[in-house]
């Protein structure tokens, strides 16, 4: 028999835990509600097939692809920088560097992950963009390239440290098998270890991509505010997150179609990251099973 006081406490604790469910419920509810209003006025077809996004103008278009393209473009630039760099660092740390070097440098790299993103935005706008413009004459003042590169620096520690964990989890006996056949460290690393850790490295990349997709301030400051369907990283673009910031920082009246558009963009972003996170979760489970 439970004493009433104990019972009460347990209920309170369970309710606290339940608040997280309520949070998810709240997110799903508001996104569904406002996005529902949005689709009450805009056909899903237009949302998915139109190639222009101009919901605030007289001639309205509601194609989400320009924003999605902007998001993916900055993310691609970020990953293109962070993946090779991060993987190289991970291999170097696990297979080449001394323990002392690693212990000294690792925390410094982790600092990169704890820097507030608005600070990265400043860096992108005041240092990286002018620097790149000196190298690339046609580069606009806002560009996916500049924002993406800085975002790459931001996600670098995610990729490098999670990849290190994955590489370290590869059993020592595979390393020894390779060395015993006359392989060099490099050959062992890239022919045995990286393939064996592939699913773990994939998790790292997926989580990093998820972070990049949801990242807001860097792109809001440095990537531009012009929705356009392009793969050219040299011109201003607009991401899903930037659109939300842009519209919500100028006040849009509650209940209007314009207001609903930020939730439509938010829902798209939410679905995108949810898919990525669950993909990552799935890969991680597979990775854990592989190394049991």
């Amino acid at each position, binding site marked *: 028999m439970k004493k009433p006081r104990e019972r009460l406490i347990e209920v309170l604790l369970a309710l606290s835990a339940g608040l997280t469910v309520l949070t998810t419920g709240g997110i799903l509810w508001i996104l569904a509600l406002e996005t529902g209003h949005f689709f009450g006025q805009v056909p899903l077809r237009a949302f998915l097939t139109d190639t*222009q996004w*101009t919901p*605030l*103008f*007289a*001639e*309205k*278009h509601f194609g989400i692809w320009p924003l999605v393209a902007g998001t993916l473009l900055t993310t691609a630039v970020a990953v293109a920088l962070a993946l090779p760099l991060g993987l190289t660092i991970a291999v170097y740390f696990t297979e080449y560097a001394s323990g002392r070097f690693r212990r000294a440098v690792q925390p410094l790299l982790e600092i990169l992950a704890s820097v507030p993103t608005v600070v990265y935005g400043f860096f992108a*706008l005041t240092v990286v*963009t002018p620097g790149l*413009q000196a190298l690339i004459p046609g580069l*606009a*003042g*806002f560009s996916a390239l500049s924002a993406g590169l800085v975002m790459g620096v931001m996600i670098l520690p995610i990729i490098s440290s999670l990849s290190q964990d994955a590489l370290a989890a590869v059993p020592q006996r595979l390393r020894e098998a390779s060395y015993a056949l006359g392989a060099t460290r490099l050959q062992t690393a890239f022919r045995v270890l990286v393939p064996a850790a592939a699913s773990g490295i994939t998790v790292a990349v997926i989580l990093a991509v998820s972070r990049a997709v949801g990242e807001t301030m860097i792109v809001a400051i440095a990537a*531009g*505010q*012009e*929705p*356009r369907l392009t793969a050219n990283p040299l*011109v*201003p673009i607009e991401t899903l997150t930037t659109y939300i910031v*842009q519209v919500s*920082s*100028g*006040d*849009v*009246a509650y209940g209007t179609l*314009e207001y609903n558009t930020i939730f439509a963009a938010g829902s798209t972003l939410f679905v995108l990251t949810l898919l990525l996170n669950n993909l990552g979760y799935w890969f991680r489970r597979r990775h854990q099973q592989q190394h049991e």
Partner: protein
Amino acid sequence: GQRADSMRIRLDGSSTVYPITEAVVEEYARVQPAARITVGVSGTGGGFQKFSRQEIDLANASRPISASEQRACRQARYAGLVVAYDGLAVVVNPANTWARTLTVAELKRIWEPAAQHRLTRWNQVRPEWPDAEIHLFGAGTASGTYDYFTQAIVGTAHASRGDYTASEDDNVLVQGVATDRLALGFFGFAYYAANRAALRLVAIDDERADNGAGPVAPSLATVENKTYAPLSRPLLLYVSGPAARRPVVQAFLRFYLAQAPRLAREVGYFPLPAAEVRRQQRRLAQFVALAGLPAPAAATTPPTP
């Protein structure tokens, strides 16, 4: 608390008017440190929406309140006061060597809805200009500047192309033009004035002789005598009836009107002539007196000056 609330004044609205208001509020804090004044930048349209819901006391506006916005207003009375003049600046990057002038017709061809995805290169404006992309930066759709510009240039308020960098935040536009050789943008004159080195004005020719012949650039003279047409306009501050009954607001508004000419010039706008300032001060006094009376049966207000 109660006391803090009675000292509170909430402002929002136009980003064009923001620099003047910011300056006035900052100066006012020296005279009356107890006042707690906040200023938002939602654009003229966004400001009027909050104004009509009575979420704010004063609305900055770079165009008069529209008929539909008037209907939405909950309060029976409000008034708009002119605080300064603006000459809407059309600007390019200093590295742009070709676009020194533009005609209104050319501007229309650039900005009208039909131009979307069609007019994308400089040589489509004038054949002798470079065959290079044109990057457009302009006010966002919630802004008075956008309404004013589309009305004056395209001929219909709220009609323009949508494929340009549109922001309520003029700073984004300034930065965009300042860092892009192929850019063309427009915004309130103050934002040009604060960044003269990074931008270059384009003179505008409305092709009407009665308004000064040839291309005209905005300046104190051309804005005051209205030859910088059609892009000269008044900047306004709307005050709601309930707010006007509060002494804190009255004191602040009196300070605002008195300081507006000096501070408008300081931030880069064109000050009202002294006579006009006195006229606005009289209107304020009238409105304050009227605001104390019971609301009239029909919701009428002194319209724009």
